[in-house]
């Protein structure tokens, strides 16, 4: 018995050790990551199916993240030249020799003169760079050349805002899609259903950014919603307070609606279809024949059955939401990392754009992981399958 539980105990211990190293920042992050991975591998041999499933799922996610990081690095490296070599060419052309030497020094400093694979390994922290191991694994995200600041400083505030915005949108999507989808299934082919379908189709067909423009303008004219920006001007740079939080919440109303509408429409249609299938089944007819209250008939079992794909669907929803938030942020000048990404891509600011792309991809991956874990908790069929 104790023998069987050995991998589980060892796994949890290693995982705790790794996470602890992260949390206290006592040792550099690399051993922490290694300990976490080792812990997860050990947990795959655990006796409990749920633990095994979670460990498996986490490991796949880490693998996917690794592949994505390579992909992202290859993509941002595609355009010929980079910010520094463009700068050097420009300086040469204007005859500023001393600055050229400085820029060339920077190129060596950030190992931009080495081949692609080596640069990737240095960026990730698998390979020693000019200053030893110093990459994303070690918590060093590189430097933005254009802004002349560390990437971590540039994106810190934007990252928090991006996560907050996307969370708010997910909550909005679920809170609206659930009742709307359920009502349009129960009242199928009545005016309520058609109205919901119409709203849904408009949400699907209007480009996000235009909805943003229209809503920004009319929201301001009709109910005085603030135009653009993430918070009122006097709060920028202030520490967090209730007043600031209120201001941010008010500014988020329009973007949340804009980003969420398309996803909400798709999710609503799917819930409607699932629930309609379920409502035609004999057990529902039996319940109705036995005189169960109409609301209970729908909510008790059919809704729960139809809800399963609803949770699974977050995998489709999240990439779409993150994309939407990047675009809408540019239009509404929200302080997410969207506008920063656009500027970084335009000026070929390698490390900045690379890190942001990796971050938004990681955001969707983590979201999908959470949805999968939720599903495993809700539905025993899934966690027992592995």
């Amino acid at each position, binding site marked *: 018995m104790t023998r069987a539980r050995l991998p589980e105990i060892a796994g949890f211990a290693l995982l705790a050790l790794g996470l602890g190293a992260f949390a206290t920042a006592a040792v550099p992050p690399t051993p922490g990551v290694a300990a976490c991975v080792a812990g997860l591998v050990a947990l795959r041999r655990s006796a409990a199916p749920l633990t095994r499933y979670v460990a498996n799922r986490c490991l*796949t996610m880490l*693998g*996917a993240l690794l*592949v*994505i990081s390579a*992909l*992202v690095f290859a*993509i*941002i490296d*595609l*355009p*010929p030249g980079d910010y520094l070599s463009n700068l050097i060419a420009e300086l040469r052309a204007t005859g500023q020799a001393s600055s050229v030497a400085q820029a060339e020094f920077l190129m060596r400093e950030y190992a931009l003169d080495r081949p692609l694979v080596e640069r990737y390994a240095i960026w990730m922290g698998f390979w020693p760079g000019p200053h030893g191991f110093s990459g994303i694994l070690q918590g060093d995200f590189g430097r933005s050349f254009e802004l002349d600041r560390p990437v971590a400083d540039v994106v810190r505030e934007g990252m928090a805002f991006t996560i907050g915005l996307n969370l708010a949108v997910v909550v909005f999507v679920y809170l609206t899609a659930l009742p709307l989808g359920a009502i349009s299934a129960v009242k199928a082919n009545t005016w309520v259903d058609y109205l919901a379908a119409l709203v849904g*189709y*408009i949400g*699907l*067909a*209007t*480009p*996000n*950014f*235009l909805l943003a*423009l*229209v809503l*920004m*303008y009319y929201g301001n004219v009709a109910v005085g919603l603030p*135009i653009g920006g993430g918070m009122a001007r006097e709060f920028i740079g202030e520490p967090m307070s209730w007043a600031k939080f209120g201001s941010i919440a008010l500014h988020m109303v329009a973007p949340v609606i804009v980003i969420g509408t398309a996803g909400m429409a798709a999710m609503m249609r799917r819930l409607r279809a699932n629930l309609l299938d379920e409502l035609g089944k004999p057990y529902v007819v039996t319940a109705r024949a036995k005189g169960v209250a109409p609301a209970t008939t729908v909510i008790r079992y059919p809704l729960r059955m139809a809800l399963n794909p609803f949770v699974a669907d977050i*995998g489709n929803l*999240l*990439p*779409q939401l*993150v*994309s*939407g938030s*990047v*675009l809408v942020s*540019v*239009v509404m000048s929200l302080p997410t990392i969207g506008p920063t*990404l*656009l500027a970084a*891509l*335009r000026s*070929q600011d390698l490390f900045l*754009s690379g890190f*942001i*792309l990796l971050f*938004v*991809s990681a*955001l*969707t*991956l983590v979201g*999908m992981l959470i949805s999968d874990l939720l599903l495993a908790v809700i539905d025993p069929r899934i966690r027992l399958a592995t």
Partner: protein
Amino acid sequence: MKADPDAHYVSDEPYDPAADLKALDRADLDASTWRLILRRFNRHRLAVVSGWFLLAIYLALPFIGFLAPYGATDRDDERIFAAPQAVRLLHEGRFVGPFVYPRVETFDMGAFRMVSEEDRTRPQPLRFFTTCGAPHRFLGLVETSFRVICPPEGGSFNLLGADRLGRDIHSRIMWGAQISLTVGLIGVAVSFAIGLVLGGVAGYFGGLTDAAVSRAIEVVRSLPELPIWLALSAAIPPGWGPVTVFFMISIILGVLDWPGLARAVRSKFLALREEDYVRAAELMGASPKRIIAVHMMPNFMSHLVASCTLAVPSMILGETALSFLGLGIRAPAVSWGLMLNDALDLTAVEIYPWLLAPLAPVMMVVLAYSFLGDGLRDALDPYS
């Protein structure tokens, strides 16, 4: 005819209810799959209308030069931010035929904006089926300046107003359709090719190949599309011509879209592999190529066509978003997204709301594709 107290018509022929039922059954059994599909598709009114609408605009694309009153890049200094001119039929209660009232645009130095005034005294009749304006090339071969609608003599015809360079928005929407509508098709073709090959390989061979493709599908599916599209289009060198850029953008749009299709193909393959007729073909020594092309392909092609139709709208919206952000189609070319780029400025939209006009065709086309795709998906499975 028998005497009937209520004077209803009753046929004298002997009635056999069983035969009647049988006849109905037979009609459906004998009907070919295509007939069943068509019958079912025709029941979706919205899908039928959408199909005809899309067919009409796609057929019109090569003839835009004849249909648009102006060229795509014709500029008129007098008509900067000109307001829309309505087509009218009655002048002072008298029928004159289709005409417009001339509008005079002046710059209001106080409000710092263009002000447009309609001159209700001079009706200017539109000209039809004549030559006017700069010549355009039909299919790059014949040079002509023949047009279906021409602006009135000495006047202008801006049905949807003009933009900041005095270009006619109505004509530009028509020209922009050429790019905005084909981008989606090329993108879908690219994603279809990748999805079909990868999904087919994974589904047919299974094992390690299947595992590898499935992982790839998972990774690509979890990428947020727009940021990657942005990164890829930022990589297009600035020196490339509009046509090359257009093709690159279409390919970029297709490159991220294949996982959905590949997954559909893979699951269909896995299901069909177990069918007896595939086993029979295998036992008779048919090559994998033949089995896939002759026996399996026809069985899921219809399903794929519906998936493709549903994939086009996201590509059109993607192109619009990219061009809107300035990383898509580039200036001499015209696309709906590029035109909407002017609307990025909220003040301009408030003063000159007709800048948002390209929004209408975008929504119409996207909705039409969605309805058509839904209808096709339902109809292509007539035995369900």
